[in-house]
Every structure is written in structure tokens, then in C-alpha cells.
């Protein structure tokens, strides 16, 4: 039987979205560091502004370098369209505001990156958009939290930083029954570990800053649309279905079908909010994506080494990674991400907060900073950094404890990282040994 000869994953990481330019044949994607683009004539300008034809007007709305990135990620995810943004947070904001208005409601997993949690908990609330948080393992809880004005379910497959796994296929059924989209931040899994659309997501966002770019050089985010969500069912999504005065009565669902969400987010969201990516960042992220598969393989094999090391370390009170048989989500993680459940490890250090500080302060090779998914190994103490704006109740809801160290496993030789950790653990246990004398 004949098989389709469409490009496979690794080929897409290198080629999708890019035609070498006709003027110079540049093999790499050129950086179009320009704000604007010459119109051929007045009619051409009018046609572009009225979405009568495709093309670039102004780099806040779209840019040729960024478009390559958008098509590449859309191809990797199997989506109909994508929109790159300045950061993962702006991707989340645009995705939500694309369908939510004052008076609307969101149901979200409680295990989110701290910034995402606060956007939902505090910032969107100021604009009249309420969120009900549900613990990611409480599948039934998502169903119960849905209200008539709920516009979407939001979550992260691999929760940050507690590394709880959402059972997306089950939660997707709940979203489908309610006629609302399931939006998933796929930063921690990347399209390499699993295809979120196949698991039931309707919209994916990424912080491209992390594993996708992979080198800690460039900020970026993206929204990817699967393309089969029926916005026209009922009257729940007027921004998708009703004529929009901002474009001469355009109905995005009617005109753009599988790309309606992306087109609205670009036409309105980028025009009016403007969180655009820089072309140079798009170039850097594209270079990162070229090696996504080889990097992720190494991230996973190094993660296995470090999970084993930490699990047998006397200074560690607990280790949290879905590959461990005693992880509550071990089975669902293995089912949803058979290649591995990512390269984030959380662990508890004996001696609590004070020991945690001592550990981090003693590291010489592993970087202490607020990022994940770098080629370099990174650590942070979430309770005093990424999630420090949360009160005690919110920390508990997010599954955080004061002894938790979040570890993003890099690509170094793990022997060197283990040596670094040994120094850290020695320092972390020092105060307790002194105190016990």
C-alpha cells in the first residue's frame, strides 16, 4: 500500500516553512530585520490591510523570518496555523483573550508556571475574567468547575514545578462535551515528546525560550491551532463567528475555517496588543529547533542518570519525576509520553529551606537562574524565586513545598554535574551536622 511521502519530524525541524530565497539562494533563513514592507501600489496596500491577500505589512503583525518559525512549529505539531509572540506569557495572554471577554470564565489546572498562575489568578480577574483552579489529577474536578460562561480549559501536560501530569485525553473529553477548547501549554514536553493535538488539545502554546530554542539566548512564544474546533456551534465564541467591525464585518470562522483562531489572534491581538517577536530571536529559535530531536534525546538520557543519582542520595528526602514507578502519574506519563516525561526533576533537600539555599549557593557549574530547558543544567528554589509572589495557600495549591529544588537537566557530562551536586549537598547538610553536636 502506498504511503504518503510528506516530510517526517526531523526533516521538518530543518526545512518546514522555508524556501531558499530567490535573490541570493541563502540556505539559512535570512533575518529580515525590518519594520515594514514596500507596497507594490495603492491597491496592493489596500488588499493587504483588508486580508484580501497574504503578505507582510508591518513586523508587529508579521515578518518573513518569524513566518518561517510559525510554519515550522505548525508543521511539527501538525497544526493548521501558528502565531509567534514575544514570549510564552504573551502567547498565553493572546490565546485566552482571543476568545475571553469580561464576564467569561476559565477552568485551569492549578499546577502552572508562576507567571501563568498569576495571570489567571490576579491579572485577568482585573479585566472581569475569572478562573477556577483544579488540581491536575482531579479529572472530575474539571468537569464540575465548568460554568455556562466557561470559554476554555487551560493546563500544562507536565505541570510546573510539581511535575504532575494532566490526563489530557480524559480532560479533552470533558472539554468536548462542554463545547469548549482545551488549551495546553506544551513548553515542557515540546512536540518531540508527544503530539498534544493527538492527545486532545485544540490549541497549543509554547514558551519557545525553553527547550525549543534550547540555548537560553532568546525569548519567544507561539500559539498553534489544530484547526478542527467548531467555533460556530452555539453562540459561545462571538469573536470567532460574529462580523468584526475591525475588518469590514469579517467573520474569522467563516472566512478562514481551520485557521480562524490564528487569524483573529494576529489581526486583532498583534495589531492591538502588539507582543511581537523580534526577527533575530526567531532566527535563534529556528537554529535551536534544527537540533530539537538530538538535544531532547540527550536531555532524556541525562535525566535518567540524574533521577537515579538523586533517588539514591542520602541528602535528598524525595525525588519527583514521572519516570519513577512510585510517581502517582507514572502510568499516564508512560502512556502519553513513551519517549520520556521530560527533563525537569523536582527534589526535596533534607533540612528544608535553609538547606536548599546552602545547596544552591554552593553550586559552581549548575546555573542558578529563572529559566528551564537550556542546554546548560539549571536549578532554582521555586518558593523563593519563580513562585515567590504566591501566598502560602497558592503555593499549596500549586503543589509547592519550601524544600523543593527544581532542576532542569542539561546536556553536560553528568559526572561533572554530579560532582557539582556533591559539593552542594555537603554544604546543605553542614548546618544540621553542626546543630546536632
Amino acid at each position, binding site marked *: 500500500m502506498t504511503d504518503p511521502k510528506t516530510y517526517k519530524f526531523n526533516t521538518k525541524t530543518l526545512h518546514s516553512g522555508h524556501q531558499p530565497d530567490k535573490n541570493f539562494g541563502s540556505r539559512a533563513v535570512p533575518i529580515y530585520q525590518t519594520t515594514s514592507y514596500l507596497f507594490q501600489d495603492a491597491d496592493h496596500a489596500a488588499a493587504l490591510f483588508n486580508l484580501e491577500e497574504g503578505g507582510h505589512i508591518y513586523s508587529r503583525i508579521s515578518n518573513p523570518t518569524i513566518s518561517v518559525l510559525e510554519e515550522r512549529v505548525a508543521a511539527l505539531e501538525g497544526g493548521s496555523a501558528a502565531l509567534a509572540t514575544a514570549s510564552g506569557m504573551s502567547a498565553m495572554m493572546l490565546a485566552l483573550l482571543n476568545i475571553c471577554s469580561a464576564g467569561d470564565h476559565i477552568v485551569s489546572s492549578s499546577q502552572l508556571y508562576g507567571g501563568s498562575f498569576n495571570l489567571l489568578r490576579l491579572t485577568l480577574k482585573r479585566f472581569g475574567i475569572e478562573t477556577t483552579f483544579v488540581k491536575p489529577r482531579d479529572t472530575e474536578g474539571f468537569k464540575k468547575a465548568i460554568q455556562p460562561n466557561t470559554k476554555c480549559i487551560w493546563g500544562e501536560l507536565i505541570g510546573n514545578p510539581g511535575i504532575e501530569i494532566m490526563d489530557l485525553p480524559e480532560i479533552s473529553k470533558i472539554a468536548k462535551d462542554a463545547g469548549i477548547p482545551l488549551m495546553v501549554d506544551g513548553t515542557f514536553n515540546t512536540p518531540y515528546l508527544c503530539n498534544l493535538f493527538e492527545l486532545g488539545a485544540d490549541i497549543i502554546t509554547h514558551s519557545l525560550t525553553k527547550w525549543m530554542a534550547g540555548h537560553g539566548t532568546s525569548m519567544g512564544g507561539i500559539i498553534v491551532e489544530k484547526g478542527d474546533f467548531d467555533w460556530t456551534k452555539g453562540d459561545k465564541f462571538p469573536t470567532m463567528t460574529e462580523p468584526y467591525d475591525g475588518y469590514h464585518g469579517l467573520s474569522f470562522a467563516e*472566512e478562514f475555517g481551520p485557521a480562524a483562531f490564528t*487569524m483573529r489572534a494576529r489581526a486583532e491581538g498583534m495589531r492591538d496588543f502588539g507582543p511581537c517577536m523580534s526577527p533575530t530571536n526567531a532566527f535563534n529559535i529556528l537554529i535551536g529547533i534544527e537540533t530539537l530531536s538530538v538535544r531532547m534525546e540527550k536531555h532524556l538520557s541525562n535525566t535518567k542518570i540524574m533521577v537515579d543519582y538523586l533517588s539514591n542520595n542520602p541528602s535528598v528526602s524525595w525525588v519527583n519525576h514521572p519516570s519513577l514507578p512510585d510517581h502517582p502519574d507514572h502510568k499516564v506519563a508512560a502512556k502519553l509520553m513513551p519517549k520520556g516525561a521530560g527533563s525537569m526533576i523536582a527534589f526535596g533537600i533534607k533540612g528544608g529551606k535553609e538547606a536548599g539555599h546552602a545547596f544552591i549557593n554552593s553550586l559552581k557549574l549548575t546555573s542558578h537562574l529563572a529559566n528551564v530547558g537550556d542546554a546548560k543544567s539549571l536549578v532554582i528554589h521555586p518558593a523563593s524565586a519563580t513562585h515567590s509572589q504566591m501566598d502560602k495557600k497558592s503555593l499549596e495549591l500549586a503543589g509547592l513545598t519550601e524544600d523543593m529544588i527544581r532542576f532542569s537537566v542539561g546536556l553536560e557530562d553528568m559526572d561533572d554535574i554530579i560532582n557539582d551536586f556533591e559539593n552542594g549537598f555537603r554544604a546543605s547538610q553542614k548546618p544540621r551536622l553542626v546543630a546536632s553536636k
Partner: protein
Amino acid sequence: MKLKVNGKEAYYTSSGREIDKNQPSIVFVHGSGLSHVTWVLQTRYFAFHGYNTIAVDLPGHGDSEGPPLKTIEEMADWVADLLTALGIEKASYVGHSQGCLVGLEFAQRHPEKLDLLALINGSMSMKMNTELLDLALNKDQKAVDLMMDWVHGPLGHKGGHPVPGLSHLGMGGQLVSSNNDGTLGADFNACDKYTNGETAAKNIKHPTLCIVGKHDKMTPKKVGLELASNIEGSKTVVLEESGHMSILETASETKNILKNFFKENSRAS
């Protein structure tokens, strides 16, 4: 927009514009398993430049009520009935792929309703690959995957969509998947069985444009040119970079060719 055609709900888009009886009308008819969405990079231009545009969803496609029609002849009659239901006496017709077969038959059966004819990635017959036909009749997703492979040329496969951020294969795949409930199979079957193309082409007396894709694997350049050679006085344009999806892969060029054709021939000029 929805209206009743032969007692069933039919959907078309006019790009949000009211039908103006004083303007010339163009009906756009999509290919197998597709819908009105494929035309967005042509229809919006004409809708805002003095034409009524009616981009239809054939029965069973997109938002039109099913079941899908079984023959090309039935589809041609349905287009005529839709125009009647809209109160449009005469319209130009733009078809893509299967829509070209429907266009040939529309010209044959309803010449009085036709103004100008444009056939994009067309042929006089479309004998289907039996494997693809069987897969589509069985509603197998592989039919969509194979179709996405075969309908796209090098531009579509690698990317570089005219609309920033859109994926040719992703968007096309979703459009066809949404109609892979038997509708795609019915379309392929109708194409496979259609035999009147050559006769219909030879009888056409209306100004006709044929657009052909150099990299088209579904209706190869050779058969596209053969179609054109059978239509007296037709104008032919070969798009050097296009596969079978000229309306998206080379959307602007296709729109400009159509624009010039209508300008040269239609009442709007």
C-alpha cells in the same frame, strides 16, 4: 450565509457582503473534500472590488447539509439551483479541480446562466487512483494524508504560505478531514465516473480561462493543457511553481490572473 436549495440547507460565503443585483456575480466551486475556505485569497478581493462572490459548500461539505451529491451532473444542477435561489440569473463560474468538472457540466447544462468560466487545476476527466478511492470510501484518514501529499507541489510541502503562519498541509488536511465522513469518497466516486468532459469542453462557447500547475500530480500539466485545447478560444496560463493547489500555493498569482481575465471580459470592465 445559509439558504434552502432543493429543500436542504446550503451554505455559501459572500465575504460578509450583501448580494447587490446591480453587480456581476461569480460563483466559486471547490474541489473534492474541500469547502469555501479554499477560496479566501481570491474571493475577498473580488467581493471588495465590484462583484458578488458566492463561494459555496457543496452538499455535505463544510456547513451545507448532506448527503453529498453522487454525480458531477447533480452538482452542476445544484449550482444552478443555488443561483436561482439567490435570485441571480447569470454568474461567472470559477472552479477548482473537481469544481472544474462541475464547471464543464454547468456550462453544458445551464449555458444561459453562465457568463465567464475559469477552470483551475482542471481536466476533462478524473479517473481516481483505486487505492485512494477505496480509502476515501472507507473514510480512512490515510486518504486525507495521501491527498495532502499528492495535491501539494514543492511549495506546499516545504511551506512558505502566502498568509503568514498558515500551514498548507495542516490547513488543507483539516479541511479535508472534516469532510472525510463519506463526503470525500462520494466526491472521488463522482469524479471517477464522470465521462462527459470532452463533449462538454468542446461545446463551450463562453470566454474561458484555464490555469494549470506545472507540478500538479492530480491533474498533471499535460491533461490541463489538453482540457484547454478542447475549449475553443480559451486562455491558458501555466503556473511554474504550483502543484494542484494553485489557489493557495500561488494564491496571489492566481488571483491576479483571474482579476485580469474578468477585467478583460466581464461587465464590470
